[in-house]
């Protein structure tokens, strides 16, 4: 990572010189380009052509939606495979392979009617049995042991426990009523039924005879030409680790794609911009886009369009409210011990006032980020940007709060002592790997020392060691830096912030907050979005006041694409959307 970023800087230099040198020539050619483009646009979408996308790391090579894990594979699978439902720009669920759906009275069942003209890439028809098969795999005994992590899509299905443990051989959770009708049955009313139905479907006829343990290694999960989906492009060829070729699926159910092919190339971060400039690659998007530091360079490229949007995720400075004893791997708040150093809510609030988050965004992220005051992605209907405390940078307020709480500098060394008059030092822990985060740590230290808090900035640790310590050996930690990527399907933050969540590293235990989270996803009230919104709003206020973590910033995603690529229609969480409508003007 370090190295990558350094290369980056250097290349930026080189690029600047190049841009200066090539300036006059560019202007002439761009004006003719524009005219050509206008002609082309009037003519409407054209068939044919290839676009090349860049990603900075090679996919690990697992192209089965049931088993893949990384964003790099997702770049390919998002084009080749589809789910019953998709999401629109407001994150509402929209028909994809299912054309419509109906819930039963108590929301324990949802019946999907499938599109009737869908074929797999190999020509076989897509049917309800494929849906049943996919969810059966997710629920099967041995699925997790084989390396699968997506059982959470199936956990709420009726009979999941019995089936996944092998007690019962009958899979009752998803039932095919006929070829084009499929019903999901849940053990209890399910508020997130549509999220659960948003999993990419795999073909039964390809996988039915492969034992689940062998599935990740099967050629149908790995080899170009054998990976079969229903999406607008099929994965036909690859040079492993370098290039992945997707060719159009002419019988695509939403109409034949305009483009002949979409090719993914693996390109080093430091070279992406150069290749974007000379037209060798057409777009760069998920997961890393391009760096904020290069924004101006990209902006100056005449033929490149930039798309900037908020990310689903944020960086936090967690505050350890409680500590879990060494060796305790359970999630039982009654066994935790209070962190005396941070137990006062006022102290935590003072810390929030003391850090100039907008300053960090302007300085480190070149302004390409947003201050966020609650841990729900800002794009969601559930995000409340007004009621939770905003904690605008206010060092005076911070000092006042600290005085009120009894933290005063008694010995005149510039640092406050605790209410008992003892030395008060808070340690700040952070991992290496994310350059911006690494650089934010000493800045935070400075902000906090400014209001008289003595900070022990610990040596950064390599990621794996850091996470191991965070999980097991954090008994003397006060602050920790960490980033979270969030899911785009449902705003429920309980996986990170309920007191019994494994990832609640602050060991925050607030029964009121827990109760709100629970209510917000309990039927039947929670079927009303307004009700959930209200509960999440109350929860966000509670979070903001109690502050188990300060949300530092949410970095914006920066995508770029060549303007010859038309009909780019990004989703809040993905560049790839409706690729069958993409076309190019030459």
């Amino acid at each position, binding site marked *: 990572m370090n190295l990558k970023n350094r290369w980056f800087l250097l290349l930026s230099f080189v690029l600047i010189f190049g841009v200066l040198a090539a300036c006059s020539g560019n202007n002439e050619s761009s004006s003719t380009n524009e005219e050509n483009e206008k002609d082309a646009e009037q003519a409407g979408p054209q068939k044919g052509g290839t676009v090349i996308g860049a990603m900075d790391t090679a996919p690990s090579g697992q192209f089965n939606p049931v088993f893949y894990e990384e964003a790099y594979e997702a770049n390919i699978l998002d084009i080749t495979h589809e789910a019953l439902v998709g999401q629109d720009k407001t994150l509402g669920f929209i028909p994809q392979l299912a054309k419509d759906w109906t819930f039963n009275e108590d929301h324990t069942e949802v019946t999907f009617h499938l599109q009737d003209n869908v074929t797999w890439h190999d020509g076989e028809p897509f049917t309800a049995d494929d849906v049943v098969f996919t969810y059966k795999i997710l629920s099967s005994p041995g699925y997790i*042991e084989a390396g699968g992590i997506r059982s959470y899509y199936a956990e709420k299905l009726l009979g999941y426990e019995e089936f996944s443990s092998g007690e019962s051989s009958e899979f009752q959770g998803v039932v095919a009523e006929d070829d084009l009708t499929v019903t999901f049955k849940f053990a209890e009313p399910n508020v997130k039924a549509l999220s659960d139905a948003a999993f990419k479907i795999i073909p039964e006829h390809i996988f039915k005879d492969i034992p689940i343990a062998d599935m990740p290694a099967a050629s149908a999960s790995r080899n170009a030409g054998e990976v079969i989906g229903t999406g607008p492009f099929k994965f036909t060829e690859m040079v492993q680790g370098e290039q992945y070729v997707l060719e159009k699926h002419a019988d695509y159910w939403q109409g034949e794609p305009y483009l002949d092919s979409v090719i993914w190339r693996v390109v080093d971060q430091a070279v992406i911009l150069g290749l974007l400039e000379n037209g060798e690659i057409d777009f760069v998007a998920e997961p890393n886009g391009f760096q904020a530091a290069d924004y101006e360079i990209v902006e100056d490229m005449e033929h490149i369009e930039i798309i900037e949007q908020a990310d689903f995720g944020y960086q936090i400075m967690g505050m350890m409210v409680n500590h879990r004893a060494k060796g305790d791997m359970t999630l039982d708040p009654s066994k935790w011990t209070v962190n005396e150093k941070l137990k006062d809510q006022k102290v935590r609030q003072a810390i929030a006032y003391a850090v100039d988050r907008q300053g960090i965004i302007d300085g480190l992220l070149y302004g390409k980020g947003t201050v966020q005051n609650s841990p729900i992605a800002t794009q969601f209907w559930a995000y409340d940007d007004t009621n939770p405390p905003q904690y605008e940078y206010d060092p005076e307020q911070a000092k006042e709060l600290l005085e009120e709480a009894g933290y005063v500098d008694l010995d005149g060394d510039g640092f406050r002592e605790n209410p008992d008059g003892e030395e008060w030092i808070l340690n700040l822990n952070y991992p290496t790997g994310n350059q911006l985060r690494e650089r934010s740590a000493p800045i935070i230290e400075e902000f906090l020392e400014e209001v008289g808090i003595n900070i022990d900035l610990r040596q950064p640790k390599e990621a794996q060691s850091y996470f191991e310590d965070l999980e097991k050996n954090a008994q003397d930690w006060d602050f920790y830096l960490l980033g979270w990527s969030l*899911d785009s399907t449902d705003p429920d933050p309980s996986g990170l912030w309920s007191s019994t969540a494994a990832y609640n590293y602050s060991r925050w235990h607030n029964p009121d907050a827990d109760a709100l989270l629970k209510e917000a996803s309990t039927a039947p009230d929670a079927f009303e979005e307004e009700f959930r919104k209200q509960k999440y709003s109350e929860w966000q206020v509670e979070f903001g006041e109690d502050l188990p973590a300060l949300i530092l910033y949410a970095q914006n995603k920066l995508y770029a694409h060549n303007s010859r690529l038309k009909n780019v229609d990004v989703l809040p969480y993905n560049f790839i959307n409706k690729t069958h409508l993409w076309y190019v003007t030459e």
Partner: protein
Amino acid sequence: MYKYIIRRILVFIPMLFILTVLVFALILAAPGDPFTGKMDPNVDREVYEKQREALGLNDPVHVQYWNWLKGAVRGDFGDSLIYKGRSVSELIAERLSNTVYLGIFTIFITIIVAIPIGIYSARHPYSLLDYGATAFGFFGLAVPNFFFGLVAIYVFSIQLGWLPAQGSVSKPGLEGLELFFNKLQHLILPGITLGLAGTATYMRYMRSEVLDVLGSDYIRTARAKGMTEPVILYKHTLRNALIPIITLLGLEIGILLSGAVITEAVFQYPGIGTLFISSIGNRDYPVIMTINLMLGLFVLVGNLLADIFYSIVDPRIRYD
């Protein structure tokens, strides 16, 4: 001679065994495992715990080592913990060929550039070309690989469009001669980048060795006997001057085959180096172990080859 080689090869076995024990102990002692860094809020920690159990990561260290060793002696190095569904052998094989091509190409250009220039510099010391070569030598040693690589990409790929910037081949499905030349094209920039420092080093060595030998008594005697310059140079000087170079090359083979992390990364050239580094970061134990074993073997073989070449170049050296 053959006895010597066989004896040397037999010594490899205990050495490699000790190497695997040490490396295994070290990587398991490092904090974390392949699952520590996986933190998906949707995924219950129990899921990862089950996978740990299934992969045997909760077994005692000696049991894990024994399981690995049992497979390894039969040539089964297990499956990668990170690259799901792919065996370690497959992962390494896929990248080893690239690394070997790059290594051979690099050594090739190092030799054809460094040795003639070194000889010329020694024969015409303090000439313009000698000064030029010296300047190039310092440049080659001083400039960092990644920087040279990026500049080379910028100039030759992005501006001039002569050579491909990234990867080891331009598209899937190439065959025969076309594939060969395409791969060769992709080797030029990373090969030069990687060979730069080596070329500079060998050039300097060659110059000083040849100068040294040329000044020695037996060369003066040879001259006095009336031998022609070419005979003196190629028959008497070169052989002696090459001995230290061979030692260096022997080591270099091991180093080049272990991959060139930085160069590979700049050019996104899929070789062993980047695989090795990322598996260490991910704690992909079977991959780390196997690459280590392989590299250990390369270093030993490289040294053995150097020893054998000594006896060819210098008849005074005999192994019995």
